[in-house]
């Protein structure tokens, strides 16, 4: 089709150029009830899963209906969201920090129609478009990353693992039976876009094979010193290699020192790691971000590896389900998953979740590893 110019003139890029204007200002988009009562909210209540009311000093109320969403979203779906917002909410809406969609109305009377409308909408394949839930002591949306849909370093898919998991724990998205909120997060490689390292349960893509070396191209496509410097364990050394009778500059990798972080590949496309059998999932658990009761905690590795059994990763969802159920059955009210594991002891955590403890879960990375070993005669048989 024909090229449509926006008005931009490549020959004079600076002409009329507008830069550094930043995002749109937040208050342009506030619904009136928010604009009016900002900073003057008195309290809130979760009326049912996914439905909140906030009450202001003025007596005003705002009702929020929170819906799950696959954050990988087409413009068609966004247009449908806009249509709903226009129909019920004067055209206002927001997204949460965990990629849920929030529709707000200023009157209790408007809630039911909105609720009914949202619940009725389904995709052709049968899944909900706008499942209501994600509040309180339940499981909300999974924050995640790109995976096979866009990134060059993933060890698994993001949207796929998330869909598989959310289907499995869906009832907890629409319920609040857990002892506390349970946050699941997903990152498709160690770069951990999304910082899943402080999540109740974290799904992490992980490689297990050292990089392949595309010697013929390495020096042409990469800055060898940068590739060498990228390796946190110093596993990469410069090397001269014979390729098709010609000596070329390249690198050698000491495979036993490799921890498969992929940082070299980020710096050098001639060192790919990806592999069907090598790549898969690490599960972590027990992290949290809030300062509530206990301080924030890092997640701990609880399953060293699970294969990429597409399209549904059954081993992964099974292990997650076990954790969720053991936690639901055993933890105390208000107790986050990590607080529970620490209270009962990690030896009991593995037992109750029916997960196997393997040597891979013992920290051996640098000096701090030592502090995770058990320096006490206190333990449970």
């Amino acid at each position, binding site marked *: 089709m024909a090229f449509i110019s*926006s008005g931009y003139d490549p020959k004079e890029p600076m002409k009329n150029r507008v830069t550094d204007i930043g995002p749109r200002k937040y208050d342009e*988009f*506030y619904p009136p009830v*928010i604009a009016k009562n900002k900073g003057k909210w008195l309290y809130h209540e979760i009326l049912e899963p996914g439905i909140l009311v906030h009450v202001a000093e003025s007596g005003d109320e705002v009702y929020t209906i929170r819906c799950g969403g696959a954050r990988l979203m*087409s413009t068609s779906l966004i247009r449908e969201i806009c249509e709903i917002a226009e129909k019920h909410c004067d055209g206002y809406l*927001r997204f949460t920090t965990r990629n849920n969609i929030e529709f707000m109305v200023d009157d209790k009377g408007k809630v039911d129609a909105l609720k009914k409308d949202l619940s009725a909408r389904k995709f052709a394949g049968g899944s909900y478009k706008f499942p209501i839930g994600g509040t309180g002591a339940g499981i909300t949306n999974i924050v995640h990353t790109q995976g*096979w849909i866009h990134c060059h370093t993933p060890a698994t898919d993001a949207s796929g693992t998330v869909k598989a998991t959310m289907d499995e724990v869906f009832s907890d998205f629409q319920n609040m039976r857990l002892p506390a909120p349970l946050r699941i997060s997903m990152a498709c490689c160690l770069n951990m876009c999304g910082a899943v390292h*402080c999540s109740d349960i974290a799904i992490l893509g992980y490689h297990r094979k050292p990089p392949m070396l595309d010697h013929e191209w390495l020096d042409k496509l990469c800055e060898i010193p940068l590739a060498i410097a990228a390796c946190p364990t110093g596993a990469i050394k410069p090397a001269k290699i014979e390729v098709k009778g010609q000596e070329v500059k390249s690198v050698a990798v000491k495979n036993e020192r490799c921890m498969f972080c992929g940082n070299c590949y980020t710096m050098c496309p001639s060192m790919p790691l990806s592999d069907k059998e090598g790549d898969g999932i690490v599960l972590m658990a027990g992290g949290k*971000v809030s300062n509530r009761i206990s301080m924030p905690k890092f997640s701990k590795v609880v399953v060293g590896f699970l294969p990429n059994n597409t399209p549904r990763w059954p081993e992964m969802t099974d292990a997650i389900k076990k954790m969720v159920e053991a936690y639901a059955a055993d933890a105390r009210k208000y107790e986050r998953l990590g607080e529970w594991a620490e209270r009962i002891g990690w030896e009991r955590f593995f037992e109750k979740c029916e997960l196997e403890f393997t040597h891979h879960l013992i920290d051996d990375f640098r000096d701090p590893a030592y502090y995770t070993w058990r320096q006490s005669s206190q333990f449970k048989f």
Partner: protein
Amino acid sequence: MKHATPLIDQLETGPWPSFVSDMKHQAEKRAKNEENIEFQIPQDVVEDLLGILELSFNDGTTHWKHGGIVGVFGYGGGVIGRYCDQPGNFPGVAHFHTMRVAQPGGKFYTSKYLKEICDLWDLRGSGITNMHGSTGDIIFLGTTTPQLEEIFFELTHNMNQDLGGSGSNLRTPADCIGQARCEYACYDTQALCYDLTQEYQDELHRPAFPYKFKFKFDGCPNGCVASIARADMSFIGTWKDDIKVDQEAVAAYVGGEFAPNAGAHSGRDWGAFDIQKEVVALCPSECIKYEDGKLAINNRECVRCMHCINVMPRALRIGDERGLSILAGAKAPILDGAQMGSLVVPFVKAEEPYDEIKEIVEGIWDWWMEEGKNRERLGELMKRQGLQKLLEVLNIKPDARHVQEPRSNPYIFWKEDEVEGGWERDIDEYRKHHQR
């Protein structure tokens, strides 16, 4: 559909919204093109995207290659280049760059704005987005190089909208909903987030840092934007004075009139609310008493963890002397292990024009730009040079609040000027009193 996708089709089942259904619907819509859009990139882009995803589901590897340097003139960020490694089979996504569109504070939108965004993106891109990226931006997922400047031009000229960050820049700052709709907010997260974003537009768009840098703004210690886990600087609301107690409302909780924790636990019968067990006993600093129907908080010992307030939002309210704590250095695991933010400024007021806060931001940047190595995050520099170095640079008096516990090794690196008599000594003088 151009490609058979039996594996990912399986992901159309189940209750959770199916991105596959959504994309297939989008692909069909593009194919039909009922609105007669003059698509500026291949019409079958979504079909090829589905196809390449199916391929990955089959062979367990990604089919995207490194980006190369693409972007808009004068900016060092906002665009992530991307090419597929099977352009022959999937020409629609041969070039498939993303653009990061800076989201508004609190992620509030009008449908008007969003539809403009959709119009632009249907015309010039794949029509697929991430709502939102992990940092917070709206992600335009997939377009070609020639479209980048066009999109930027339309965004800035027609929509008063800029790109977000990428590269060794300040990244798009993000905030929790805060005062807009939350009674716990100790400062206006949106106002501060916006002010700093505007103040530091240059740092956001033009790479001058050793590596990426992130700001996140949590209105209170509940941490709804997870700043402590994923921002080089986390601004976490807090207060200095007393938690406000409404004893009548306390009684209403005890009496079962109000649901504890605003009903967050209503999916199970946890029995009657037990204020002793659920509030008093769980306070981490053991500073609450409930006696004779009255709740008393020893505020001096409170660590402002939010628990009691979360459980009884209608009875307890944050104090009035409000501000925020600044923590620094959070980051993902590469290279040395993940870090959470470490407390640097226990308390500062958040009042426009935020000069005190900007001074700290700039003090940190000066140090990091001076001392940071290429691709060294602030947290890594802090690890390498020490928290006390950062405090020194910022002229902050070190204080027991800066640590969880004092050092357990006695390896103190004294400086020469701290030691009486300095370091230079004469070995011959010493030997007069200490024979070999």
